[in-house]
């Protein structure tokens, strides 16, 4: 295990040291006192574990493919942006645009997510133990978003094939978002996912609402002009 201290150092140096440790064969890297610095552990492509003891700033774990990154406290904007695969676990809350445009892997947030969680998500799974803010799931194309608490306004706006699950209340649905009952298979998947990522959670898959696209915006039809007026 390699330990990297952040005090007095720039993100570029810290990231270079993380990469050097991985290149030298380390499978676990511990990053100490990150002090909410930006751009930590971006673009890591190896199946290693990176434990960050504290908070991180913007873009942590962006563009990764394979590692598991665990953050003890909170994360700023753009967590896990465009990640291909791997796992990011945040024990605190996250800023805007967490898990935006991810293509695979899993993002687990034990606290709350701010605005635009999982916008334009193209695959993978996002699990939030707390609440999510405004406009989560906007334009989601594939993948799944699970919010155990409340969802904010404009939830699941203008989506393609992303499937969202909400455990409590939805402040407001976005354009073309439709609430459905989850299927038996989906309830099983939810129970499995909650047990795997939020062990100790007493939530039950059957309590969740499912939100998908109503598909009204997928093809333009002038007879549905009113729908488009509202969407645009």
């Amino acid at each position, binding site marked *: 295990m390699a330990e990297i201290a952040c005090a007095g150092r720039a993100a570029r140096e810290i990231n270079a040291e993380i990469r050097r440790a991985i290149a030298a064969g380390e499978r676990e890297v511990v990053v100490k006192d990150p*002090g909410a610095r930006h751009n930590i552990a971006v673009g890591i492509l190896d199946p290693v574990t990176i434990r960050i003891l504290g*908070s991180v*700033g913007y873009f942590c774990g962006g563009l990764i493919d394979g590692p598991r990154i665990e953050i003890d*406290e909170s994360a*700023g904007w753009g967590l896990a942006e465009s990640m291909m695969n791997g796992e990011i676990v945040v024990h*605190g809350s996250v800023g*805007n645009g967490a898990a935006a445009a991810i293509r695979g892997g899993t993002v687990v947030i034990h606290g709350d997510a*701010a*605005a635009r969680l999982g916008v334009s998500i193209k695959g993978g799974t996002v699990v939030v133990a707390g609440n999510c803010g*405004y406009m989560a799931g906007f334009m989601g194309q594939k993948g799944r978003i699970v919010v155990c608490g409340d969802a904010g306004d404009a939830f699941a706006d203008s989506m393609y094939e992303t499937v969202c699950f909400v455990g409590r209340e939805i402040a407001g649905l976005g354009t073309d978002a439709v609430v459905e009952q989850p299927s038996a298979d989906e309830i099983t998947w939810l129970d499995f996912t909650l047990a795997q990522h939020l062990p100790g959670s007493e939530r039950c898959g059957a309590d969740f609402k499912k939100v998908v696209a109503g598909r009204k915006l997928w093809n333009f039809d002038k007879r549905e002009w009113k729908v488009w007026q509202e969407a645009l």
Partner: protein
Amino acid sequence: MCGIVGFFAKQGDAQAEIGRTILGMLRALGCRGPDSAGVALFGAPDDNRFIVRVKLGESGGVESKAAQLAVHFPGVHGFSATAAYARFAVNGSTDLTRLSAAIEALDKDFEVVSIGHRLEIVKQTGSPDNLENTYGISRLKGTHALGHTRLSTESRVDLSHSQPFWSHGFPDLAIVHNGHITNYHQLRRRYEQRGVRFYTENDSEVVAIYLAGQLQEGGSLKDALERMLRDLDGSYSCLVATGGEFGFVKDPFALKPLVMTETDQFVAVATEEIAIRSALPGKYSVREAQVKEVRVWQR
């Protein structure tokens, strides 16, 4: 970009090291706003006097102007001049509108930057370190403070266009703003028709004018910030402070960052968490403010 920071001590007398804390927070956000830096500091309350801070000129060579000001206002207390500013105290029952008009009539460069029982605004172009080197803001103690580092996008870079903004004529009200007020011109026209004077072309100035107007009508600061969500368009994370209150508002699209933490001792709010972590050691959790979130603390 711009960086905004705020610190509010929840307890104790006015001896919290607000200058040192707010400077530490601002330094961490220097890279978000290299054009200018400024602070609004709220010291010990004294309703028997107002502290007046006057901009004498944009930079140096203003000693003769300080002397000119001192001659015209012989009755004031504790007159001092440092770099671009004169500072003095007047009786707590002074008519602030008349006083400001009299000061600003003396020289076209003069601008009353702040007046309050507690509020003092210090700002200038350059970095937070420059601000500290010129004015020694870290020495100042009090209860709460705001800070701003500016990256100018639409108006000029000088002392007057820097933040925090005081709402001229309304004592002890200061704001810092990160974002753009997109209906600024419309609002400005409306206020100017009512005779309100704008000192700059910075859209953030209208936030201070708007909030002062709302408070003058008798509402609470929380009500004013909630109405701001209806009346001001664009992107904004704003911090606002009065003599006894401290609060923030985040715009209806959550376009600008703002994080906060609250402990038994203090509230700290900043554009980025790095500002809070680098100035305030200890164990606490930080979270992003949600869309349309309004919070106000009192002491």
